[in-house]
């Protein structure tokens, strides 16, 4: 146990160190690529809290992600001088409101019904955003300029690709540690016990629905955070990111990387983006054909995912 934990932290520091120096040594394209992996990895981790730890497959994470993007856009376009922290909190609040709404209704259902309900909710938000052109820009979405990076009391400066990467890395690392703490807390233990046996958890006396609602809300909050980061990196919010394909990708990341490990989904996101990159060199628009085949094969033959074999060590 002791050595396992030491091994884990050594690994953590090594990976963090590599990710910190990555933007300094990588060429422009791959620097951006790594930043993007981190952002999608955060989305993947957020849905892992539900899929891997609570046993609920959500097909609606695009709603949280997308609302995080639109919340950011709203703060940067409508409110005073563009401020990073204001944008961040606005994105988080929008995602949280949507997450609370979805959580309240969807957690009354189990298994596939939960999956379908979350899917339907994300579709409702998609239709609203897509058709409410005055407010959301409809199909075109909203574009804005990047807010400057600022630390209150210390001054501010423009984001360069390198500082943006570090900012994203910092947020994602803190989120990872937070999520890890959540899964190891008594609360997280109850979630895992719901995954293993919901009826028994209820019989012991836990209010299962309440735990599920909080789990969905937390998960939605972190998904929203990923949306905020993505919006800041790309300087736009678009309805495509509320579309269910993004939710589907979050699920793919989890399956590919290994559910219930938090790190696995990030690796899954990296693997997926690499596959997409590799295949889109050969068939630009149809990369999802080979990726879909690989995904289906992994569901059948490698249900643990790439890092599933490390599950015990990663949760140490």
């Amino acid at each position, binding site marked *: 146990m002791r050595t396992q934990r030491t091994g884990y932290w050594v690994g953590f520091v090594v990976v963090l160190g590599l990710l910190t120096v990555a933007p300094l040594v990588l060429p422009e394209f791959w620097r951006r690529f790594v930043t993007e992996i981190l952002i999608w990895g955060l989305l993947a981790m957020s849905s892992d809290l539900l899929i891997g730890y609570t046993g609920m*497959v959500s097909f609606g994470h695009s709603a949280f992600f997308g609302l995080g993007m639109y919340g950011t856009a709203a703060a940067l376009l409508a409110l005073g001088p563009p401020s990073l922290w204001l944008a961040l909190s606005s994105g988080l609040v929008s995602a949280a409101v949507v997450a609370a709404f979805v959580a309240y*209704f969807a957690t*009354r*259902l189990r*298994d*596939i*019904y939960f*999956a*379908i*309900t979350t*899917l*339907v*909710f994300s*579709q*409702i938000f998609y*239709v*609203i955003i*897509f*058709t409410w052109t005055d407010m959301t820009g409809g199909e075109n979405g909203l574009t804005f300029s990047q807010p400057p990076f600022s630390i209150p009391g210390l001054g501010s400066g423009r984001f360069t690709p390198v500082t943006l990467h570090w900012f994203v890395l910092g947020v994602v690392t803190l989120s990872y540690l937070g999520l890890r703490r959540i899964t190891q807390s008594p609360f997280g233990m109850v979630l895992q016990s719901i995954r293993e046996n919901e009826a028994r958890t209820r019989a012991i006396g836990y209010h299962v629905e309440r735990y599920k609602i909080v789990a969905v809300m937390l998960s939605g909050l972190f998904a929203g955070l990923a949306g905020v980061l993505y919006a800041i990196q790309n300087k736009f919010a678009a309805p495509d990111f509320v579309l*269910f394909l993004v939710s*589907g990708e979050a*699920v793919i990341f989890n*399956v590919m990387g290994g559910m219930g490990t938090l790190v696995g989904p990030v690796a899954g996101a990296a693997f997926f983006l690499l596959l997409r990159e590799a295949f889109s060199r050969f*068939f630009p*628009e*149809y990369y*999802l*054909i080979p*990726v*879909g*085949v690989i*995904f*289906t094969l992994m*569901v*059948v033959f490698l*249900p643990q995912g790439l890092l599933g074999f490390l599950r015990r060590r990663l949760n140490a």
Partner: protein
Amino acid sequence: MIPFEQLLVQAINGIVTGMILALVASGLTLIFGIMDVVNFAHGDLFMLGAYVGTTVFVTTGNFWLALLGACVTMAALGAALQITTLRPLLGRDPLTTILATFGISLVLQNYALWQYGPVPRKIMEPLTGHFQLFHIEYPWYRLLIAMLSAVIIGGLWLFMKYGTYGIWIRATTQDRLMASAMGIPVPRVHTGVFAIGAAMAAASGVLFAPLVGVNHAMGFDFTLRAFVVVVVGGMGNLGGSILASIFLSLLEAFASLWVSPAQAVIVSFIVLILTLLFRPTGLFVPTPK
């Protein structure tokens, strides 16, 4: 105030789309009821069936051959998909079937895009006549669709009720283990059911194709609608899904008198959420004791 004729036209429209949806949804609910598989790729079977229909139609020029060809091709594809991806998943968590069929859906959708391109394709309707319905000309073909769908669903019902294989299917639904003890080849029944479901999806795809262009994205739309219908009607309940399809399509048709069709979809979503909150077993099933 909306004039009465318009309400009637929308009611007929609603029933026609409802019947097509019922044909898609009954395949989905059949597959779910028998093997606990939530087929995320069902709408894509519908879409691909419609595309196969356009190919046969272009080569032969005969609508009925297109319908038949699409059904046979998609049944074969469905059987192949079931054997290769779903059969190994039997006995695992039903959620893994969502994931696997989601993968299949991605592949089918992008395959269609690759093979047929982004421009929608059309099939000419076999029946071009119109009849006078108040001030508008209403195409006979739409009524034909509703009737054909009813005939196919009725045929399925008779088959399930009286056919030997239908009895096998129902026995497998009730008790998989007992059915196999009685000598029913359960794995083959599963494959057969998936093939039937795929063929029904293809049939509805071809019937639907003359009304709108066939495009690669219509599959997801129908997957979602069929899910909503199947949940509202009660999972695994054939009669319930048919009633729910017609009910929801009527609601959407009436709603689109006031809002755009894109927004009218929200009405079915709201019905779904209300159903799940107040009657999670489905609107059209008897209250469980």
